Structures are given as C-alpha cells and as structure tokens.
C-alpha cells in the first residue's frame, strides 16, 4: 500500500499505463473502419508493440521498486480517476501480452478472410473482439477506480460472449446466452456494491478507500454483493454452471484466452477488493467460506473432468477445478502473518501457471480436433505418433496442473501447502494434494491412449502446421519455467503491497 500522497501523483513512466490501454483500443477502431483482411493485419501488427509496452511497465516497476501511477485528466482522486500498476498488475499484463498474441498467431489459420472477398463475418469479428478482450484485461489490471473497473468488466463481457458463439452452432448460442446472463448478474451486483461504497465514503479510488474503510454494516453488505457478483464471473462453485459449455464449444484460440485470462480478470478484482480495499474487515468466516467453495470446486470439477468424453469439455471442467485453488489463497494470505507472503506468492504463481498451461492445452486440443475431425477421448489411441509435439505440449501443461516438479503449478502448490501447514489450517493442504491426484487422473485419461501404440495408425484429416504446434509448446514451456522462478520474482510480486499486509516484518 502506498503512502497516500505518492499514490495520487503521476510517476515517471506512468504514461506507459495509458499506452497499454489505448493501443488495443486504437486497433479496434482502425480494424472496424478499414475493415476486411486488414483487421487481421492491424491486430497482429499491434501485438508485439503491446508486448513491448507490458514489458516496459514491468521493467520500470522492477527498476524503481515502486508502483507506477498515472492520474487521468489531471484530476486527482477522489474527483478524478487514477491508473496504477503494482507487481501483481505487471505480471498479469505480461501474461496477457504473451497469451493473447499466442492465441492470435495460432488463430491465423482459423480466421483468414477468404480470397476474393473483401470482408467476412467471422474474421472481422474475431480480430476486433480479440483486441477488445486485451484492452479490457489491461484496464482491469491497471484500473484504480471501482466504477472504471465496472466499465472494464462490461467491456470484457461484451468481448468474450460473442467469441463463444462465433461459429454459430446452436450449442454455442445457448452457452453464450447463459454466459451473458451470469455475467450481467455479476456486473450489476458489483455495481450495487460500488454504489454503497461511494455512498458511505464519497470516493471510489482504491487507495483512498483503503484508508477510509471501517467495519460498518454498509461495507459488509457491499463486500458481500461485490464478491457474489465477481464469483459469478469467475465461475466459482456453485456459480460455475456456465463455464464448461462456453469454454469447450468456443473456437480453440478463443477457449485458450477465455480460460487463461478472462476468468482471471474478475479474480484479480476479487483480490484487489479483499486485499487492497477491505483489509480492515478481516472476517475469518468470509475467507473460510471462499476457501470452502474453492475446495468444493477442486473436488467437484476434477471428478466431473474424469467423467467427460470430449477432450475440450475435460479441459473446461479442469478450469473449474483449478479456479478453486485460487480461492484457497484467501484464508492463508490475509492477516499479515509470517506465512502470508508465501500464500500470496503461491496464489499469484497459480494464476500465472494455470494461464499458460490451460492456454497450451486448449490450443493443443484445438489442433487435435482439427486433425482428427473430432475430440472424443475414447478415439485418441496412437495420437502420440501422429502429433508428437501437440501431445507433448498437452502433457507439459498437464504436469503443471497436477503440480509435479518442475513446473509453475508445483511451485505454486508447494508455497500454498507450506503456508497451510504453517498456519495450522491443514484441511487446505489435504484438499490440494487430493486435487493433484485427481488432476493426475484426468490427464492420464488423455495421455495413456495417446501414448499407447495403436493397432492401426490414426488417420489425420490434414497435417498440422509446425508453427502452431510450436506456439502451444512454447506456452506449456513457460508454465514449466515458472517453476524455476528466482527469489527476485517473489520480491517483485510484493511491490506495492503494504509491509504489514504482506507479513514481511
């Protein structure tokens, strides 16, 4: 947490935060006006630039050891709006800046405008929606004002929902409408909480609120409403019903971004809310409820994943389970105890590893579906021979989901289990280990037939492009590399958190 004055003045390099947001917005506007096949070119051309900006923000924060701040319009909060980037924001920005371009380059083969046509529906929609998704995510990671974040959440929903039903099949339309209804419920409850907070404290700036919030009835109600709304968007059990059909039936690059990043956006806001706005309200009951729902998600999601017949549905239910791990962070990282820093680091690392691993797995599943014409798990015998790189990518991603070394997933679970044991909350450690076993189960379900020697060689409809397999593999490698993160990485994650909160004293 920043000293109030420094949180309300623009820092050097703060303009980078503005650039990170307006770059994809410019892309959307240009894509719509110039149209046609240029939409794809504009999107792909801006992606390296976006990555450069995200990296520059991270480097600047690392160099100064302090968060970046930008005051918009010259009006300081509470009247105006601020953008802020701390360690957590920076790693999320870089993750988005890696996963979105990966999905984009992967999707070139799926969403090309046909020759002879100036503009086609699916390509134009895909490239504009993808850039909108990126813009919305960046605002979520950088926004310092709660109402601004509401607008960002709506932008995120409007970008994600049409991606789900982009190919127009009836099951995708049903999934998209369900997703939209859940998401709208989430946004409106979030907005209601925002109204109550403004009514009580006269500001919506996160840093100012953190200084003013006290334990009052209005704040309890606001916290409950906002959390309920954000949980619906993050698909935590029991509000997870919309996620599996939506993520499984979307086009593969869209599924990758949806599971890896979109659900993490609302989770990021829950963390901001509980750790930055409301730390004065340390209610053990609330954090325990969140963790219990998370534990239920892990068990429920993993068991359902074991029973799926389709590969993409298995991966989608795995997302439901992995989201549960994220909520185990809450009872462990609050309260400024000696183990809180470990729990925080573990939780963030879990967010990042899952993002890369899940994106890799969905892209791999997409390649499998394109090659074989189906994604039935029972008919995957011999896949390892036909598409070795793809299966390897899937396997590496699975490694991280199971929490086996060396992988980011292992490092994350190690930290969380350590914190759970040190704090005496053994239950969470048991749940995590059980979840790891179950994850092993459903990954094995896919890899075992894939790696077995089929009696007849598998027929592939078309040969897979090496570059697309390489993209999936690269994402899986990043998930593994995260396991080797040095201590400096964890110091970076703590930049911007108050020392008391982090328990670093």
């Amino acid at each position, binding site marked *: 947490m920043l000293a109030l004055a420094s949180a309300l003045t623009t820092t050097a390099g703060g303009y980078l935060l503005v650039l990170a947001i307006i770059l994809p917005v410019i892309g959307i506007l240009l894509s719509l006006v110039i149209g046609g096949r240029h939409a794809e070119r504009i999107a792909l051309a801006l992606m390296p630039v976006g990555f450069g900006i995200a990296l520059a923000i991270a480097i600047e924060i690392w160099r100064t050891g302090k968060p970046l701040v930008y005051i918009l319009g010259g009006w300081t909060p509470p009247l105006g709006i601020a953008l802020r980037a701390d360690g957590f924001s920076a790693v999320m920005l870089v993750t988005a800046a890696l996963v979105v371009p990966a999905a984009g380059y992967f999707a070139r083969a799926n969403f090309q405008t046909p020759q002879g046509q100036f503009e086609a*529906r699916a390509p134009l929609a895909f490239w504009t929606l993808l850039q909108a998704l990126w813009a919305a995510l960046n605002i979520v990671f950088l926004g310092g004002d709660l109402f601004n974040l509401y607008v960002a959440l709506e932008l995120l929903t409007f970008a994600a929902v049409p991606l789900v039903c982009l190919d127009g099949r009836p099951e995708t339309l049903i999934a998209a409408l369900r997703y939209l209804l859940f998401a709208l419920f989430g946004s409106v409850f979030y907005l209601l909480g925002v109204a109550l907070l403004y009514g009580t404290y006269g500001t919506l700036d996160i840093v100012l609120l953190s200084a003013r919030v006290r334990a009052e009835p209005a704040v309890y109600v606001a916290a409950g409403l906002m959390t309920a709304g954000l949980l619906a968007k993050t698909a935590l059990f029991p509000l997870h019903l919309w996620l599996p059909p939506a993520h499984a039936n979307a086009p593969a690059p869209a599924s990758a971004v949806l599971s890896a990043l979109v659900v993490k956006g609302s989770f990021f806001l829950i963390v901001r809310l509980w750790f930055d706005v409301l730390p004065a309200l340390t209610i053990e009951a609330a954090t325990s409820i969140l963790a219990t729902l998370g534990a239920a998600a892990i068990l429920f999601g993993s068991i359902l994943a074991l029973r799926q017949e389709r590969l993409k549905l298995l991966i989608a239910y795995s997302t439901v389970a992995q989201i549960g791990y994220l909520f185990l962070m809450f009872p462990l990282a609050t309260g400024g105890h000696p183990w809180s820093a470990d729990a925080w680091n573990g939780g963030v690392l879990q967010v990042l590893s899952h993002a890369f691993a899940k994106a890799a797995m969905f892209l791999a599943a997409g390649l499998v579906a394109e090659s074989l014409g189906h994604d039935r798990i029972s008919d995957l015998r011999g896949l390892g021979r036909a598409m070795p790189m793809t299966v390897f990518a899937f396997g590496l991603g699975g490694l991280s989901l199971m929490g086996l070394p060396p992988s980011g997933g292992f490092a994350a679970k190690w930290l969380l289990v350590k914190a759970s044991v040190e704090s005496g909350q053994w239950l969470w450690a048991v749940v995590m280990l059980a979840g790891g076993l179950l994850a092993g189960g459903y990954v094995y379900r896919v890899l075992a037939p894939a790696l077995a020697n089929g009696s007849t060689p598998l027929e592939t409809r078309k040969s897979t492009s090496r570059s697309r397999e390489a993209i999936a593999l690269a994402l899986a490698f990043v998930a593994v590399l995260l396991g080797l993160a040095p201590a400096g990485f964890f110091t970076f994650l703590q930049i911007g958190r108050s020392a008391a909160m982090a328990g670093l004293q």
Partner: protein
Amino acid sequence: MTVLQALDIGLAALVLAVAGWTIVAREAFAAVVGYVAYGLLLSLVWVRLFAVDVALTEAAIGSGVTGVLLISAAARLRKTEAPATDERLGAPLRLLAGTVCAVVAAALAAVVLLMPDPGSTLAPEAAQHLAETGLGNPITAVLISYRAFDTMLEKVVLILAVIGVWSLAPDRYWGGAPGPQRVARHEGALAFLAQLLAPLGIVVGVHIFWVGADEPGGAFQGGAILAAMWMIVMMARLVEAPSISALWLRLTLVAGPVVFLAIGVLGFAVASGFLTYPTGFAKPLILFIEAFMTLSIAATLPMLVMGPPSRPPRP
C-alpha cells in the same frame, strides 16, 4: 402530509405495482408494455430526486429505445412462450429464490435507512473546479472532464456491442442491411408521421446536445433523440437501412471514440497529460467531443435495435 409527500408515496407505490406486474404478467408482450410504462414513471421519480439529466436519459434510452427493442423482440418470440413454461422451476426452488431475494432487499433497505444524512459527496469539489472547465452543467463536467476516461471507455463498449450484435448474422448475410424487409408505403400513416416528426426531432435533439453544456441535457440525451428519429424514418421506409459494410456508417460509429481518443492523446502534447484540456480551451474542446459523440450515439443505438444484417448484400 404535504401534497408533495403524498405524490411521492403514490409514485413509489405505482412504480412498485407496475414493476410487480412486469414480473408476474403471463405474456411477455404485456410485461414489456408494462416495462415501458415503468420506465416513464421512473423518469418522474428521477425528477423528484432533482436529477433531470438522468430523467431525460431514462426516458429516452432506458424506457424509449429499450422499449422499442423489447417490444419487437416480444412480438417475434410469441410462439416460444408456451413451450418455455415447461421449464418452470418447482415451487420449493421458487420459494428458496424468493427468500434469498427478500433477504437481499431487506439488507439493502436497512443500509438505505442507516445511511448518514447529509451523506458523503463530491459536490463541493465538482463545484470548485467547474469554472476551469467553462461549463455550467456539472454532470457534463463529470462525464467529459473529471471522469472522461469512463465515458471514452463507454463509447468503446457501445462499439463492441454493435460488433457483437453484427457477428450473430449468418455468414451469407454479412455486408447486408439489418432490419425487417418491408414494402414502402409512402402514403401510409407511418410515413406521414415520420415526415412530420423527423425534422422536429432532429432540431430538438441537436438543441438538447448543445444546451447540455450549461443546462440539463448533453450528448447522450440528444443522441438518443436523433437515434429515435432515424429509427422512425427507417421504419417508415423513407430511408433504407444501410449496409453494415458501408464506410460512412462505420466512420459515423467510430467518430465519437476516435475524436475523444485523439483529443485525449493531444493532451500529452499541448496540455499536461492524457485527457487534459489546455486552459481556456476546455469548453470548445468539450463541445467538439460531444458533437461527435452525439453523432456516434445517433448511429449506434439504431444499429443495436435493428440487430444483425438480415439479408444478403446487394451486389
């Protein structure tokens, strides 16, 4: 009890009654008509809360444009209503849902009653800086100056909604025009109404946008009225719905956010940062931005109401 208090209580009771009707009505069409009436009553409540800008927006967009959208949808969905009742939740589940909703409403009512009076407010700060913006309407100042970033993002959200709606068309209709295919009847009553109303509506819309700098009004309200005029003229077939690939349509849709963004970026060079206005030039720049916003809103709202393209593009 004074007359005004009696009016307030009566208004509140009426609003709740119509809202209840909207939820329990058997037919969707009846519920939607109830919703339009509810919206107009709500505008009166906003006037009683001394929020005239909001009342205008609620009447124009919340009740008016939304009403058109929902009525045409209800008409098209009439045949799907009977089968849907098979999926009704059982009585125990409905009781559970009702209890949860009652608890939420009660908690909110308690919070409302416990709210301090006078409450926390940013009105003094808004008033203090109003002179710098050169505006007389503090709400316009909040929208286009103090919290300009919110408004700019909201314009992008509108564009996204249009893209989302358009993406729902079948592939073969991409590039066509939206809206139902109807035969033009230039002597008909609708055409007469449109020819009478449109010029008047355009003048009113532009006036409300212009006057919004100092009085209640602004880009959203003015734009909504212009949008309504365009919709009436299209429904009467005096003007053809445009092809979604038409360059002029695309340019009009993005004009608002583009101008907003461009002036915001210029702020880096000629003022002290993104979305800052150079001193002395604030009001003309704000009006300039609002003019293009009005244009974009007037184009966007009808596109959202008319839906995805419904016929193949004309060769």
